């Protein structure tokens, strides 16, 4: 009798567990379909009007030349030279932001942090300003001056924060406080440069700090994608350890996980992804903060599923923001950094207010 009861309970658990697991697979698949669908739509919206069918034809013609599908040269140019690199960049950048955000929140055990918390964005902003205003940089030369500088200073900021934290033990608290301190330092330095800049330089700095995907090219996309594809699987590989870290270092240690090493590796990977993206796009906030939260609400906080799905959610979010910024007031364009903040902040506040109990209880 007792055995039958236990058997019934086990069966119920098995069923509930299977249902949960199905959900964790189905949502990402659904998200991916939604993303591709939305990408095609986004390619057909914009200042120059082409139809959705033009886009589909142009994409199919290029990808499957043997089918004999033909597209107009105008549609080809708009789709392949202007819109697709930008759409792809929005997706990859959004995914990268979301993944690094989820990883940083995991290792810091804090739902309010992002890679920007450890000074990456302010470092990048300072590096870019340095190149724009004073024309000096760590990598000499031309078009790569701003990109190289932004990348270098972004990583420098992360490295400094980690170095400072090492004095007192690398805990979430030391990293976050060190990051905030450094953020102020770099922001002040950027302001100083803005103060010294000529009008034209100032415009350049401000535009860079807004963030924009307008200058996305296939080349920059290739670089960002490469770094993302190298780092993201490594973060996913550490998913279990991130789950354990969320419950505290002591518990992680007792489960056989080297908390300090996981924290360092995840931080390096997240910093690398973020720095690579923002050196090409400028500072685009909030995707890295909000995308992981939306994802958690849908499929829970097991990082094995959270990180891949967050990538899709981040891609959708940034693509939506960029498309809105590009099309709402076409031919004028709102910088994507502004639009993400307008979408991200209310969403974030909503989460903060309604989800408080679960996060901070």
């Amino acid at each position, binding site marked *: 009798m007792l055995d039958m009861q*236990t058997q019934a*309970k*086990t069966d*119920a*658990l*098995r069923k*509930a*567990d299977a249902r*949960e697991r199905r959900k964790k697979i189905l949502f990402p698949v659904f998200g991916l379909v939604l993303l591709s669908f939305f990408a095609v739509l986004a390619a057909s919206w914009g200042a120059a009007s082409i139809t959705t069918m033009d886009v589909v034809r142009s994409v199919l013609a290029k990808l499957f030349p043997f089918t004999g599908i033909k597209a107009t040269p105008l549609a080809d140019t708009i789709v392949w030279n202007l819109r697709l690199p930008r759409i792809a960049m929005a997706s990859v950048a959004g995914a990268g932001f979301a993944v690094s955000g989820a990883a940083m*929140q*995991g290792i810091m*055990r*804090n*739902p309010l942090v992002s890679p920007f918390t450890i000074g990456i964005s302010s470092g990048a902003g300072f590096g870019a300003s340095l190149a724009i205003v004073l024309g000096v940089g760590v990598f000499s030369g031309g078009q790569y001056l701003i990109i190289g500088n932004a990348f270098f200073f972004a990583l420098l900021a992360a490295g400094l924060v980690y170095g400072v934290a090492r004095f007192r033990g690398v805990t979430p608290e030391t990293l976050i406080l060190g990051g905030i301190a450094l953020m102020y330092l770099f922001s002040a330095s950027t302001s100083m440069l803005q103060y010294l800049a000529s009008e034209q330089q100032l415009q350049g700095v401000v535009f860079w700090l807004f963030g924009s995907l307008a200058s996305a090219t296939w080349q920059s996309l290739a670089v960002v994608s490469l770094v993302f594809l190298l780092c993201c699987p490594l973060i996913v*590989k550490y*998913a*279990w350890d991130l*789950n*354990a870290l*969320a*419950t*505290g270092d*002591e*518990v992680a*240690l*007792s*489960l*056989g*996980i*080297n908390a300090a090493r996981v924290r360092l590796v995840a931080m390096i990977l997240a910093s690398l992804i973020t720095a690579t993206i923002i050196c090409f796009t400028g500072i685009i906030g909030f995707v890295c903060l909000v995308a992981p939260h939306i994802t*958690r609400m849908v499929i*829970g*906080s*097991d990082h*094995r599923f959270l990180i891949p799905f967050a990538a899709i959610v981040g891609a959708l979010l940034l693509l939506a923001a960029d498309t809105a910024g590009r099309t709402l007031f076409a031919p004028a364009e709102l910088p994507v950094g502004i639009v993400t903040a307008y979408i991200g902040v209310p969403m974030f506040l909503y989460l903060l207010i309604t989800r408080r*109990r*679960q*996060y901070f*209880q």
Partner: protein
Amino acid sequence: MSIQVDNLHFNYGKTTVLGDITLQVTDGEIVSLVGPNGAGKSTLLKCMNRILKPSRGTVRVDGQDIRAMEMKRMARLFGYVPQTTISAFPATVFDTVLLGRRPYVGWTVGDEHREIVYDMLIKMDLDHLALRQFNALSGGEQQRALIARALVQEPRVLLLDEPTSNLDLKHQLEVLDHVVDIVKQKGVSVLMAIHDLNLAAQYSDRLVFLKKSRIVMSGTPAETLLPRTIRTVYDVDAIVNHDADHPHIVPRRVVKETPLQMVK
């Protein structure tokens, strides 16, 4: 599985938190660490599975020094239940307990591991809460979930840090009953830090009294739980009743501090 601790010291900077600790826990034994706040109970627990690294001394498990052990192997030998747990992100009870299988699984979790989790959830009376958020559970339920997580590690030794501190009377007994049941069934040794002397006496085979970083006395509850011990360790005058199955103390009042050497 027996644990042998020899001459263990732990310093935090210049402060000695543990000095010259020697103790053993034999197979299937339940040993409680008792003593005033700050005596070093939690620290001693954490030295067992190298969450903290002792400054000096050794901890051996069946003769093997834990310093030579891989982290993963240690995680299969020791299950640790912390005093307080924050779950930074909402995780279900199932996922919380599943984490205990970490030392055994790769990236994916095979069905055999899931079955172990199902069984433990049922044993700890948590199955109806499996998909609830851990943070939304009551104190007693949370404690049971954390113990379940440590037990699915299939440890040979269970380390419990104040397992009853946030619980009401009924849940204190319930949690400890669960522990004793499973522990006796599987022959797991238990080392727990606990404040409540009466609970300690009721559930432990042996008590180890710590005061000011040192062990001042150890033995069975009947041997050690005497007015003299309570006075020395806690500076409290107490009456000890022996009419139940185990000694029961009734604290009376605080007295002037007793010098340590008077115990011997």
